[in-house]
């Protein structure tokens, strides 16, 4: 063991640079995996935690007043019931701002199922009939503190001031503002005061199930039991969870995927480096066996060494992530902060570490095994005739070709299998860099061409306290507004009636909204609809099919004529023309207007102008661009390109070293024949550059294909839908490729110069046995 350590130490000292590079690569990979882990946990965990603590309900069903919910409690697999609670919708007003609110009537006793977790303040108190408990994300968004007051405006416009008794976490719905309306609990008496009309009171009932996986099925049963006319809304826990975790989960997945691919690339790089080292050290290994190393010990030498490097990298990475992670900007830093406080952290860290170290060890196993098989007798014999190269060299000199080119290409592809492997290993990081650049370009697309990505409107305006005509006039008077499309959104039960999606009516027949279509065509008729990917997934429908949805008790039979790109609401959005919602009472009133601005207009300025012009009676909000949240992705992309570049560098060092080793003797012959050292250096550099060029071509090609696929897959998974992927610009790719080749040439110059400076005789005798 001591002897092994002694050798490992000496070997590491002899290959300091390479070892440091491997440690660095491992460290960076460890950091990205840890960050990914933290983000994924952060994304899923708060909800998970709350759900567990509150014994959350798996299915929430809103029914009309008067419906009998008792049969639901007897449904198969239901183990607990929350409610039914009477609910009423209202607005929460704060200054010019107004948010929609679901008021839920609850007793002074906390329920046992789906129990709100009071985070600050206290629960409802019969002594304070004007008390309200706000869901915590809503409270945060409204900056409402315990002890303060909020104004609730009822459906009829009457306002009422209520005192915030407490703030509570709930797993019943997603966090505000991603999930609207926000949630607040009041005493039944208070609810009656806000909504005196029983016809507008709904019942919300939560079902806790034995098997969470059967939520869809149970929801469907519930709707059948009650009759779909009675049900206004159905939500399953999966919907809530995905709404809670969306942003960070995507980012975490992205990081995780890249981290894993980087790990594979690093493992390959390790295998390559270790293999090269074994080849370079055949004699030393024979010597070790001569002095009494057993084959198993030789195998262990290499395994220990690379595992030690991986461990060092892992430790460095974990240390760096723990120390500096929380200091990172934005969600990353927050996630790391939360992660550090988590008890499960040690396990995750251990698992990540074990995974990384194991992959590296596994990658070293093959070269190590080969080292173990090297015979002890020093019988390295020159098995290749050297005449080939000298004939070629002579020919090249005769033809007055630049010898570097002729000989360099021969040197590069002299052994096709090895050259192929080198190209393949180099191509992997290049491919991943291309994918990273593709992600970057896609983000650029979101920012520069929001229209193509379903973000035609950059503002929404909601009239409050003024009538439709006045609102419309205000909007058309604003010069920066190119078009204002009236819209309304209501929840709709999907076919199968297991969940609700948002049915959005936007634009009119003679003034259709410019949906960003990925497939099909725009709405041309009142029974036509376009759907986001999320909606299609939920409805198990495809473009061209007919679907039946139930909105506000009214069934609508719609022909899905297109799929639009929906960056919002997980893409669970079915869009129709405003006329499609027309009932006996004519077209419904516009709830809001989607404002498309003239090119170059500044949304913030327009918003200010509109707010001023309407004296606060238009609630104008910017449409959230996911690119703004995904800005973090850019940081990640830059980091990843860094890691991949490091890995690529490690591969290059290996490739140059093994190329040199193959050709030391040839180079001696060349120099003996009269090539200048500079020409010989040029040959080596050319050979590396050619290999890199091949790798760049292969890597970029594959990368572009993969990038489109990956991003679209991600889009599909997130409900946004395929069709958002953008290719990196050709000139970007060209630049990246050129830089890669240039770097490769530079990296190979140093060892090449060193090799050519070696004495000719030394080079010639290097292959003697």
């Amino acid at each position: 063991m001591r002897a092994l350590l002694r050798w490992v130490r000496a070997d590491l000292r002899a290959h300091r640079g390479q070892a440091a590079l491997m440690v660095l690569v491992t460290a960076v990979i460890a950091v990205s995996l840890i960050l990914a882990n933290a983000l994924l946990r952060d994304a899923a965990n708060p909800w998970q935690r709350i759900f567990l603590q509150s014994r959350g309900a798996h299915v929430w069903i809103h029914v009309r007043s008067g419906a009998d919910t008792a049969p639901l409690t007897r449904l198969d697999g239901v183990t607990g019931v929350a409610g039914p609670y009477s609910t009423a919708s209202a607005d929460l007003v704060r200054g010019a701002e107004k948010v929609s609110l679901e008021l839920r009537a609850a007793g002074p006793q906390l329920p046992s199922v789906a129990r709100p977790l009071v985070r600050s303040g206290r629960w409802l108190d019969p002594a304070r009939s004007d008390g309200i408990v706000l869901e915590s994300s809503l409270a945060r968004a409204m900056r409402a503190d315990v002890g303060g007051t909020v104004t609730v405006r009822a459906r009829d416009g009457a306002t009422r001031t209520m005192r915030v008794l407490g703030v509570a976490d709930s797993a019943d719905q997603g966090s505000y503002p991603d999930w609207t309306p926000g949630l607040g609990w009041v005493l039944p008496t208070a609810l009656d005061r806000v909504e005196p009309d029983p016809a507008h009171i709904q019942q919300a009932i939560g079902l806790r199930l034995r098997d969470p996986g059967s939520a869809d099925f149970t929801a469907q049963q519930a709707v059948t039991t009650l009759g779909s006319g009675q049900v206004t809304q159905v939500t399953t826990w999966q919907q809530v969870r995905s709404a809670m975790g969306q942003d960070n989960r995507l980012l975490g997945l992205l990081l995780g995927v890249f981290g894993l691919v980087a790990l594979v690339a690093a493992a390959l790089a390790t295998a390559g480096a270790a293999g090269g080292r074994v080849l370079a050290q055949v004699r030393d290994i024979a010597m070790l066996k001569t002095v009494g190393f057993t084959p198993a010990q030789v195998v262990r030498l290499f395994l220990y060494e690379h595992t030690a490097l991986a461990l060092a990298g892992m430790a460095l990475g974990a240390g760096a992530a723990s120390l500096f992670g929380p200091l990172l900007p934005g969600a990353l830093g927050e996630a790391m902060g939360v992660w550090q406080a988590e008890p499960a952290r040690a396990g995750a860290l251990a698992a990540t570490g074990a995974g990384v170290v194991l992959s590296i060890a596994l990658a070293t196993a093959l070269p190590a095994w080969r080292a173990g098989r090297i015979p002890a007798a020093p019988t390295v014999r020159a098995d290749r005739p050297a005449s080939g190269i000298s004939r070629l060299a002579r020919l090249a000199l005769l033809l007055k070709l630049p010898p570097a080119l002729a000989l360099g290409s021969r040197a590069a592809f002299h052994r096709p299998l090895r050259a192929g492997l080198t190209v393949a290993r180099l191509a992997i990081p290049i491919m991943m860099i291309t994918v990273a650049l593709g992600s970057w370009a896609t983000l650029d697309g979101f920012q520069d061409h929001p229209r193509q990505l379903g973000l035609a409107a950059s503002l929404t305006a909601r009239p409050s306290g003024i009538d439709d005509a006045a609102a419309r006039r205000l909007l058309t008077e604003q010069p920066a507004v190119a078009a204002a499309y009236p819209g309304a959104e209501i929840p709709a039960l999907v076919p199968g009636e297991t969940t609700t999606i948002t049915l959005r009516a936007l634009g009119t027949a003679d003034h259709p909204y410019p949906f960003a279509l990925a497939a099909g065509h725009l709405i041309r008729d009142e029974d036509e609809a376009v759907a986001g990917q999320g909606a299609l997934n939920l409805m198990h429908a495809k473009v061209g099919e007919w679907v039946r949805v139930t909105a506000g008790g009214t069934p609508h039979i719609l022909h899905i004529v297109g799929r639009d790109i929906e960056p919002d609401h997980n893409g669970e959005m079915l869009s129709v023309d405003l006329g499609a919602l027309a009932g006996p009472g004519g077209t419904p009133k516009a709830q809001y207007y989607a404002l498309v601005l003239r090119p170059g207009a500044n949304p913030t300025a327009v918003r200010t102008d509109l707010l001023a012009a309407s004296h606060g009676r238009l609630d104008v909000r910017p449409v959230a661009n996911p690119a703004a949240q995904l800005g973090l992705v850019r940081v990640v992309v830059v980091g990843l390109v860094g890691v991949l570049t490091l890995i690529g560098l490690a591969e290059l060092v290996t490739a140059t070293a093994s190329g040199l080793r193959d050709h030391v003797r040839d180079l001696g012959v060349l120099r003996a024949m009269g090539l200048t050292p500079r020409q010989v250096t040029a040959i080596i550099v050319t050979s590396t550059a050619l290999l890199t060029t091949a790798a760049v071509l292969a890597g970029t090609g594959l990368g572009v294909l993969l990038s489109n696929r990956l991003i679209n897959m991600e889009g599909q998974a997130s409900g946004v839908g395929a069709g958002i992927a953008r290719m990196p610009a050709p000139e970007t790719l060209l630049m990246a490729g050129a830089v890669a080749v240039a770097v490769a040439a530079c990296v190979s110059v140093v060892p090449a110069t060193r090799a050519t400076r070696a004495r000719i005789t030394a080079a010639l005798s290097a292959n003697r046995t």
Partner: protein
Amino acid sequence: MSRSGPDTARVAATPDADHVLPPAEAMLWAQDLVKTHRGAETATHAVRHVDLRVDRGEFVAIMGPSGAGKSTLLHLLGGLDRPDSGRIWLDGQRVDGLSEARWSLLRRRTVGIVFQFFNLVTNMTAADNVELPALLAGMSPRQARARREELFAELDLEDRARSTPAALSGGEQQRVALARALVNEPGLLLADEPTGNLDSRNTRDVLRLLARYHASGQTILLVTHDARVASGADRVISLFDGEIADDTALHAPADGPTTVADVLRLKG
């Protein structure tokens, strides 16, 4: 010591029963060794039916033209290569059937080997190269270091301990190699042209060292082209075409020339 002459040695080494025991004084005993190197289309009969016995404390040289199979024979005896057939006893133990790993363990304590080139692990300092086998054989780092310092003092290498092999001259490298081979006080020292790469001055130095260790009881089997080197041995075996052509004990110095005049006269 009543060392058996060449002829008796051969007679003693020919029994073909498998259960014979080696004579107690034999450090190394090989019977009917055969090794054929098989190439793609050629087969080289490098060692053919060689019987060989080296007694404890003996210094035996193997001579022969290039390609005679000297190195191959040495590799077989050191377990670096396996014979196609034949039996080998080392220090009383039958070793020809040992696995590679067992051979490695055996080499740590029983066999020291020196080659012509590439005797040292390139990445390690001279000191580490010598201490490595000592550590491998189970010495504590301190013991290994003490033993190494002792050897380096004997071999006049004290100020070279921190150098890497590349920074050493050929003669110094061979002396370090000798130290490496002797650090565990092996029963048998195998040397394959240890001076083949050296000029005459360094050759003389290495020979003197070998003679010194031999005088203190070290058993040595040495392969060489160089008659000067071979003349330091007690016995010279001539290998020709993979077979032993001659096996002769060298006489006591009284029988040889005592002055250069004798030499000149001999050369007539």
